[in-house]
Structures are given as C-alpha cells and as structure tokens.
C-alpha cells in the first residue's frame, strides 16, 4: 500500500497507509492526527493547511484559484503551503512528506 509521511506540530513523523483516491486531509484525519478540517474538505475553511516537502511540492498539480483564495485566510502561509483536502492521493504521490501547519 502507498504511504505518506506526516510531521505533526510537535515535530514527530508518522508513517500512514494511504488509500488511493482519498485526499491527504482524509488520510491524515482518519489516522487520528490533529487536523481540524472544519469544512470536511470543501475548500471552505483552510484548517487543513500543510507544508509540503519542496521536492514533492513541485510535483503536485497546480492549486486551483479557489484553493489560493482559501489559503489567503490561513496564517503562516509559505511557498510550500497547500490545503491537504485539495490533494488527491495517487500512486505518483507514494512517499510524499507534509508537515501540519500551526492551528489557529
């Protein structure tokens, strides 16, 4: 099974089994890691904000304008920021590494 690596806010890394076709947010939430995802993945809350490891960031499909607009409402947005509910798990992403952004 594909895997993703998630660094929590304390700096601990978790290896998670990743169901293909799920969003990264769903994989992280189902694993019980603290991701609020208040809107349930509708790109309407920005509480699923993650930082993507730079080499993986470059390989992701470009964010839609809607995701950019929602990121405007997040804090501590960096060049590698994405909303994890908008990234769909595919085989190409096997091994991707992300860090949970601070809660607000």
């Amino acid at each position, binding site marked *: 099974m594909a895997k993703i690596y998630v660094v929590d806010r304390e700096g601990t890394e978790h290896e998670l089994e990743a169901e293909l076709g799920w969003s990264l947010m769903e994989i992280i939430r189902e694993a019980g890691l603290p991701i609020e995802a*208040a*809107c349930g993945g*509708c790109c*309407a*809350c*920005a*509480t699923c904000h993650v930082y993507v490891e730079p080499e993986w960031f470059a390989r992701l499909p470009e964010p839609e304008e809607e995701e*950019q*607009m929602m*990121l*405007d*409402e997040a*804090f*501590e*947005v960096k060049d590698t920021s994405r909303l994890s509910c908008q990234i769909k798990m595919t085989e190409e992403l096997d091994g991707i590494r992300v860090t949970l952004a*601070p*809660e*607000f």
Partner: protein
Amino acid sequence: MASDLIRTDMVIVGAGPVGLFAVFEAGLLGMSCHLIDNLDKVGGQCAELYPDKPIYDIPALPVCMGQELVDRLMEQIRPFNPVFHLGQQAQRLERVEGRWRLTTSAGTRFESPVVVIAAGAGSFVPRKLPLPEAAAFEGRSLFYAVRRRDAFRGRRILVAGGGDSALDWFLALQPLAQDIALVHRRDQFRAAPDSVAKMRALVERGEARFIQGQITGLLGTDGQLEAVRIRTPSGEILHPCDTLLAFYGLKMELGPLADWGLELEGGQIKVDTEAFETNLPGVFAIGDICTYPGKLKLILSGFHEGALMCQKAFKYCFPDKKLVFRYTTSSSELHKRLGVA
C-alpha cells in the same frame, strides 16, 4: 440593558438549516418560535460557508445551492411567522420557576418552556491573529470588527485581509483616516471587482498603500500598537500604524453553550434518540451540535431530529393537550396553520 421578557413556546439557538426547519415542524403542532443567531443573516453554514456550492443529498431536490436551500426553507416556514434576533449570541440559560430564561449578548431576554439548540459547530466568530502578543492589543488598537466608523477618525490604520470585509472597511475608513494601508498575502482579492478597482485607484493616486505580505508580529506598549511587522516577498518590514483591523474570515466556536450544564462529548451535546433531549429537561439539541450513537452531520438528519424533537416539545408547551398525528396532505387543521385552507 434589561429589556422586556419575550414569552414564547420555543426559543431556537441557531438559524442554520436545521433551526429553520424546526420552525416548520413546531408550527404544524401549533408552537411558535423565536430564533437567535450570531450571524447577521440566516442559513448557518449553508449561507456563510458555501452559498453557491451545490448540495445533492436533500431528498427530492436533486441539486440545490446552499443559499437556495436557505431561501426555500424561509419560504416554507413563512406561514408560522418566526421571529429572528440576528447579530446576537445566546449567552445565558437559567431555570426560573419551571421555565427557561435565556439572555443574549444584546440583552434580549426570553422565557419559554422549551429551548432548542441548533447551534451547528457553534457560533460564527471572527478568526483572530494567532500571535501570542495579539490579545494584549485586542479592543484597544487591534479590532476584528468595526462597530462605530467614527471611532477611527484621524487614525493611522492598517487593514489586513483580501475579502469583501477587508476591502469594504478599507474604502469606508480611507476618507477618515490620517493614513491607511492594506496588507494581503497576494495581489489578488476575493472581493467585489468594483471594490478592488476603487482600492487600486486610491493606491495609484498615492492616497493609500497596498503591502503584499503576511503579518508576523505586533509592536507597541500597553495595548497601543506602534508598528506591525510584515513579511513581504522582498523581506521583513516594519509598518508604523496605531490601529490594525484584521479580517481573516469566520470560524465556529462552541462559545457560551459550554457553560450551560449540558452533557458534552467531544464538543457536541449528548441527546437521546427518541426526542433529542439533552440532560436538561425541555432543552433539546438538533443538527450538527448534537451527538448520539450513529450520528451523521447531514442536513437530512437534522430535519429528522427536528421533527421528532417537536413531539416531546409539544408536551412541555401544552401539558394538558393531546397530540394527534396528522398528515399535511389531508388535515384541514394543518391546512389552516399553513395558510392554504
């Protein structure tokens, strides 16, 4: 702030889709309702978070936009004349002589045998700056809402955000301010194109400034802001100002409900699945705010919960009356209440 007591059958906290439909079910049984919501509009999450996104799982409505659902509910409950108290938060709940007394942030007071909590994930409140020093400035030189425009006359203002609230207040305060700037992460805005054009024109004429960047720190003493640290694409800057207005959208927060003595589980209110009553007699919880084994946070489930809740609520409102089960299709009594007789 003591105002006259409003006496009614049912006070509903939250005017989201579930609170709205409860008015209908209550109305059929002859109970009248007052609703309270922190937002200045009805519709809860549907209206605030996704007014123009489609919903596909409302029975018999193959597709319906968030706002459209709210508009349809408002039309459906119109015969029952619900009274709305918007822009205020339900704050205190007390038991007084066998009835419930509820007080809002605006000082409105209600007395009723039944209180229905349809509060979703809590009240919509402004998102705050997640900086440890922010709390010290809040209310004095850092604001998340504008109450009186005049209070900002002559100030050196920084407005943060890229949505309609940020742009609208930027434009409204510009003529009063000594100087004004807008800070936003990108040079693109999620606001009415007309406001964006007006903002750009002011910036071009040198009457206001736009700074692309993100706030990383607040500087000042005794709650008085002196400068804001901003990370821009070309490095960190200090922007001098005495007032910061931050508009980062809204989030939901359980709020005062947490102190009402309700049995909670993971931020939701525990109810039974027969009547959706809480541990407090006559206080019900329906919609996203309630939890029970198998609970699903769907609009559909909230409608069902409202219908069942009303059966028991009826007994609190009319202890001496008998409840008869009737269909809207065939009952002339219900037709009268619906205004279709």
